[in-house]
């Protein structure tokens, strides 16, 4: 099939080193003595453990429940007993720990009940959910939960589904062997993706250094009766980068800021299609994967390995030479030396390379950049690595972003060609993680600010509400008291002092209306005022009501005492807001 292929700029041709590990067929690695299964193996939320120490688990049993939509479940790779759920070192460049479920296999490798379903009768939504529950993630290395990529954009029609079998990175051959030996299942898996996304065409890209794989895939496509197109793309690193393969097969450029579905294209790895088929058709969650074991070993080969197998146990199968001084996970271009040989194989582990000085001679020291531009010519994303390097080095992160550092896929082409042996990618990774950290901090600060402002607002509001309530209560009480006082004043006034009662009633009713209608703003003040006024009115009413009785037929001494008291009362009234107290004592005496 002839097809018009596009090209991406740059790229390099490192020695492929693939032939060593393709001579032998895929072997099944034996069950190790202990499995350490990290819960966080894919992009997105960390799955929550659903087992605890002492639990018996069966192969394929759920041990980590997906946390949120972008997260994928984790399963027991074999039957056995959970020893602990604890922190263990991760196959991660940081060498830090993360939560793992440790399982002691019982050797029976007994499956849970597998429900075989016909996915064609299932709603697309439940197929996606099934994939999530089966822990299907992108096995090309990005480990993005697959179900999250299986929803077509609502606005852009899905033109192409690109299946990535390019496997451009040196040393790695697991996808090659998978396509050679299990092509039919891969093709059927692609069929699931096709049915969910409904693309106009399906393109399977395979580098032209894998003719056997391409032939096997073509045969399988024919056998299954599909119309997928198997395309052999030129061997050029990094043709297997999702963006590069999309570019080569469709001519579309996917910028960092966009999702590929927005351009009507989506890309999956062949191994992902394979596991998706196993999950849907056989009910087998992802509990193992193919791993190339190569490098400084006597018998390089591909193994089907249980997730959680310690790397050193796996490496032993391939007879590493005694001078092996480390294990690289992934390829030589994008991989890293694992921090500890006992770290487990995870879903992202496609290759283990036994490291030694013969294969990877120590690099000569870094020299200053001579601005030769070789890195820019090699960059498949047409970036300017030397500029990004300069600004990363100077920690001028804003500038690195202006030079589109987030479009960098860390392919390592620039470091590979740099005559000054500058570890460019390390600078870019440093800059990127600093920028991310800053972003996280900024988000946290924004959140804190919003919450702080909200709290202040709420406190204000609560204060106002409280004041209003107080004011209302005070007003109500004042009104009640006033009414009582008025009634009390009215009773004696009828018999003795009419004008006095009228005088008493007037000031009592007067302060009530202003207190009853408090503005929310100074409600508190109003409330205080109301209380004071009510108290004063109360006192006055009492005084007025009582006075006529007191002043009836008095002796001169009594009159003098009353005058004294009156004087005191006036003085007290100036100081005390409640003059009722000093006024009260003389009453019973008289």
């Amino acid at each position, binding site marked *: 099939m002839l097809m018009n292929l596009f090209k991406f700029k740059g790229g390099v041709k*490192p020695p492929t080193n693939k032939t060593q590990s393709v001579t032998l067929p895929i072997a099944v690695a034996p069950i190790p003595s202990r499995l350490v299964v990290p819960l966080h193996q894919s992009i997105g939320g960390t799955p929550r453990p659903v087992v605890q120490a002492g639990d018996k688990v069966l192969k394929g049993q759920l041990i980590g429940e997906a946390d949120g939509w972008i997260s994928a479940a984790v399963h027991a790779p074999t039957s056995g007993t959970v020893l602990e759920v604890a922190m263990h070192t991760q196959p991660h460049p940081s060498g830090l720990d993360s939560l793992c479920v440790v399982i002691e296999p019982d050797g029976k490798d007994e499956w849970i009940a597998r429900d075989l379903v016909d996915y064609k009768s299932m709603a697309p939504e439940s197929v996606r959910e099934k994939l999530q529950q089966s822990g299907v993630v992108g096995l090309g290395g990005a480990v993005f939960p697959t179900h999250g990529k299986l929803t077509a954009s609502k606005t852009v029609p899905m033109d192409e589904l690109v299946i990535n079998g390019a496997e451009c990175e040196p040393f790695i051959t697991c996808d090659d062997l998978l396509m050679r030996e299990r092509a039919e299942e891969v093709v059927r898996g692609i069929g699931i993706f096709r049915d969910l996304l409904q693309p106009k065409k399906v393109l399977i890209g395979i580098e032209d250094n894998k003719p056997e794989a391409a032939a096997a895939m073509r045969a399988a496509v024919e056998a299954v009766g599909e119309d997928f197109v198997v395309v052999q793309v030129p061997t050029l690193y990094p043709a297997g980068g999702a963006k590069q393969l999309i570019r080569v097969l469709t001519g579309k450029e996917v910028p960092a800021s966009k999702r590929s579905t927005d351009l009507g294209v989506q890309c999956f790895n062949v191994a992902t299609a394979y596991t998706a088929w196993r999950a849907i058709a056989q009910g087998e969650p992802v509990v193992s994967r193919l791993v190339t074991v190569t490098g400084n070993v006597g018998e390089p080969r591909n193994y089907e390995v249980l997730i959680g197998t310690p790397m050193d146990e796996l490496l032993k199968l391939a007879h590493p030479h005694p001078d092996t001084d480390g294990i690289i996970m992934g390829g030589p271009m994008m991989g890293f*030396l694992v921090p500890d040989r006992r770290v487990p194989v995870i879903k992202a582990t496609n290759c283990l390379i036994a490291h030694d000085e013969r294969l990877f001679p120590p690099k000569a020291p870094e020299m200053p950049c001579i601005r030769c531009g070789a890195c820019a010519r090699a960059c498949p994303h047409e970036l300017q690595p030397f500029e990004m390097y300069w600004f990363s080095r100077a920690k001028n992160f804003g500038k690195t972003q202006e030079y589109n550092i987030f479009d960098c896929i860390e392919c390592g082409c620039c470091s590979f060609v740099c005559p000054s042996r500058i570890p460019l990618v390390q600078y870019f990774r440093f800059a990127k993680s600093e920028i991310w950290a800053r972003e996280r901090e900024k988000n*946290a600060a924004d959140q*804190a600010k919003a919450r702080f402002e909200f709290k202040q607002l709420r406190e204000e509001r609560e204060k106002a509400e409280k004041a209003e309530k107080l004011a209302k209560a005070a007003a109500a009480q004042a009104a009640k008291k006033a009414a009582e006082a008025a009634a009390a004043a009215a009773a004696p006034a009828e018999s003795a002092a009419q004008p006095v009662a009228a005088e008493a009633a007037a000031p009592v009713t007067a302060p009530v209306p202003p207190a009853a209608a408090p503005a929310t703003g100074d409600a508190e003040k109003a409330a205080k005022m109301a209380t004071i006024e009510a108290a004063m009115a109360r006192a006055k009413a009492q005084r007025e009501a009582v006075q006529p009785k007191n002043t009836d037929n008095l002796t001169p001494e009594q009159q003098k005492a009353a005058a004294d008291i009156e004087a005191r009362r006036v003085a007290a009234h100036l100081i005390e807001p409640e003059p009722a107290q000093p006024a009260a004592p003389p009453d019973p005496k008289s």
Partner: protein
Amino acid sequence: MEIALAIAIMALGAVVLGAALGFASIKFKVEGDPLVEKIEAILPQTQCGQCGYPGCRPYADAIANGEEINKCPPGGTEGVQRLADLLGREVKPLDAEEKPKQLAIIDENTCIGCTLCIQACPVDAIVGAAKQMHTIIAQQCTGCELCLPPCPVECIRMEVIQENIDNWKWKYPVVEIKAAPISASDTTGGSGGMKEAA
């Protein structure tokens, strides 16, 4: 005559360009953020009051009015640096000890549910009800320590946030003078010196 023409042309050019520039300066006027907003954007929003102001915003106001820029310990030296860059002032050493980022943790067995810490927390990071155990939402806690003093049973402690896989950062590449053969950095980011294996 020619001279006069040349002068006239130049003058005309000057007038036209001047008008264009004047127009552009009005039309494309940049709406500058008020300074206080920019300052506040740099402050870490911990709302701890260690700067002597009742929150980051008041401190931002104060800085805009000439207050020193080195009084915010959570912002650290980097914060001072950024404020200095923004305001064109001199970088000063931080007027306090720089502390690593912390997180408050309530010992849930000791907590008596008095709600005092809830009232103290400026960002509502503590949840609980009267006489119920309280707990701190780790994501929201800014580590301001304001909840420590009010607690009558001293059940709140601060813990330094440890590096974990989620917040781990790639380190600045150092030029190695290496002896140990295993070091994470000699193959990360691509090994240029890869050879064809036998």
